């Protein structure tokens, strides 16, 4: 079974991004970039399926500029077999990404497609569901456990109020939650070896899909931050402060 994994290049989650002085966009110049954390869970899930003898080939796909080669190298170093870079200068948004990924899926014909449940830059959380819709495939979002059994995949999903388990006929789309697994660390020798694995580059224009952005960015701003309050010296002082607030009953 072939597994396709979508890997987005995003600002490292430890970095507090700033905005450009003119407020036109965020300023990510020179900022540390890496694999979207949820996509690392997606790669790890695919690797475990391979270790179980279920997956035979893992293909990592990233959409963006040639800079995205670094996240694909990371996926290869984790253990993906090959990588595809769909190159585009457009500002890619979830719907456009889903359309391009659909084109890749039609070409590669994977049985299982795993994405992250959301990208930590745009926090959209849409691409997997959109891809499933465009392919008319079954979907299981926010996966915290998966098990492949013949032609079906059983997926436990994290939902408000608990969990839900679905069984999907393959081919299917799954989006990974952080608790799906603990992604492995990449060892230096693997990073060296990954240099030898192939990254195929496809010009997005070849797919003849319209991936133009439909959401126009008007401006960005920093939200008014909560102000730090005061430190209290004791539990009783805390209580007396809280009791000054109307609506708080203690």
């Amino acid at each position, binding site marked *: 079974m072939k597994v396709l994994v979508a890997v987005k290049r995003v600002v490292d*989650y430890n970095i507090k*991004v700033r905005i450009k002085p003119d407020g036109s966009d*965020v300023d990510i110049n020179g900022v540390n970039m890496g694999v979207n954390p949820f996509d690392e869970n997606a790669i790890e899930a695919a690797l475990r399926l391979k270790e179980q003898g279920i997956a035979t080939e893992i293909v990592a796909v990233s959409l963006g500029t040639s800079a995205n080669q670094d996240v694909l190298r990371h996926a290869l170093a984790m253990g993906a077999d090959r990588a595809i870079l769909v190159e585009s200068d457009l500002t890619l*948004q*979830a*719907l456009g990404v889903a359309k391009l990924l659909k084109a890749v899926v039609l070409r590669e014909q994977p049985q299982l497609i795993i994405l992250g449940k*959301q990208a*930590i*830059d*745009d*926090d959209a959380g*849409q*691409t*997997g*569901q*959109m891809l*499933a*819709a465009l392919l008319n495939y*079954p*979907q*299981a*979002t*926010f996966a*915290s456990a998966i098990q492949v059994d013949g032609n079906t995949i*059983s997926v436990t999903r*994290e*939902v*408000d*109020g*608990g*969990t*839900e*388990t*679905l*069984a999907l*006929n393959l081919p299917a789309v799954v989006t990974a939650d*952080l*608790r799906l697994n603990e992604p492995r660390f990449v060892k230096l020798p693997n990073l060296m070896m990954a240099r030898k694995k192939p990254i195929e580059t496809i010009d997005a224009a070849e797919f003849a899909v319209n991936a133009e*952005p*439909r*959401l126009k960015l*008007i*401006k960005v*701003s*920093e*939200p008014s931050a909560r102000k*730090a*309050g*005061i*430190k*209290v010296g*004791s*539990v009783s002082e*805390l*209580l007396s402060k*809280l009791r000054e*607030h109307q*609506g*708080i009953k*203690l």
Partner: protein
Amino acid sequence: MSNTTMKNTAMKILILAEHDGKQLSPAVYQAVTAAQFWNAPVEVLIAGSNTSALAAQATTITGVGRVIHTDAAHLTHQLAEDVANIIVQIAGEYQVILAAHSSFSRNILPRVAALLDVAMISDVLEIKADHTYVRSVYAGNIHTTIQSMDALQILTVHSSNFTAARNADANAEIVSIEAPEPFANTRWVSETRSLSNRPALGSAKVVISGGRSLGSAERFEELLSPLASKLGAALGATRAAVDAGFAPNDIQVGQTGVVVAPDLYIAVGVSGAVQHTYGMKDSKVVVAINQDPDAPIFQVADYGLVADLFEAIPELTNAI
């Protein structure tokens, strides 16, 4: 593009209502308030099985003109594939389709959007103008104002930013529609629901969240439960506490969990990572109890107590 020249009398708004088969989610009422922005008729979709009582409940929300009710055995678990197909079937009548942002709507509406070739807008904080919205990116660190080019708008709204619509006498009519054929390739297998007699996390007036420092599931419960009972509070947790198995996943507060905005939020042994504060920074009053005076949580807390939580929490519980 946006129609500013005249009031489109045909313009209507559809709200996808979340429910558990028995109750409408309180967030539906907040979504109704958000929908009032357009000054157009608001309709609510109830999909499920044996949901007549729910449809009736929806008719009593102030501001709702019509309830679209679709009832079928295969809709019991409201699979994304099935609910999306219902919405697509009726979408032609609407200019806006929206829902409160939750794991329910996030599962379904992107699927609807792609089927209708619409770019969706997730977790809208503010509706600025027809087609123009404010939403946050980078775990709440940045706000963006965006304008949608699509004629049809599909969005989820950040419920805590909208007050809940009130109940009134039943005003809305109920229209029943047929559900499309079930989607064949997805089967519901089972679910686990966290049983708790505490208030629901998303709508509780008081939330007490515990972090990794609680040390074990037993201590999490032992220490925080008595305080929660006294305050009528819901319990929340950090991702670190959930990952360590101290608390169930559905009470994780933050960027990848639940967003809460209670009157009082008490963070107990929580460091205050941005991914966590994303989920609680709209709380009215924040209390942080942490032994590290430099913990970032103090920067978002109205009252900080530098103390060992294993002493401070029992003391606080006893003092109330």
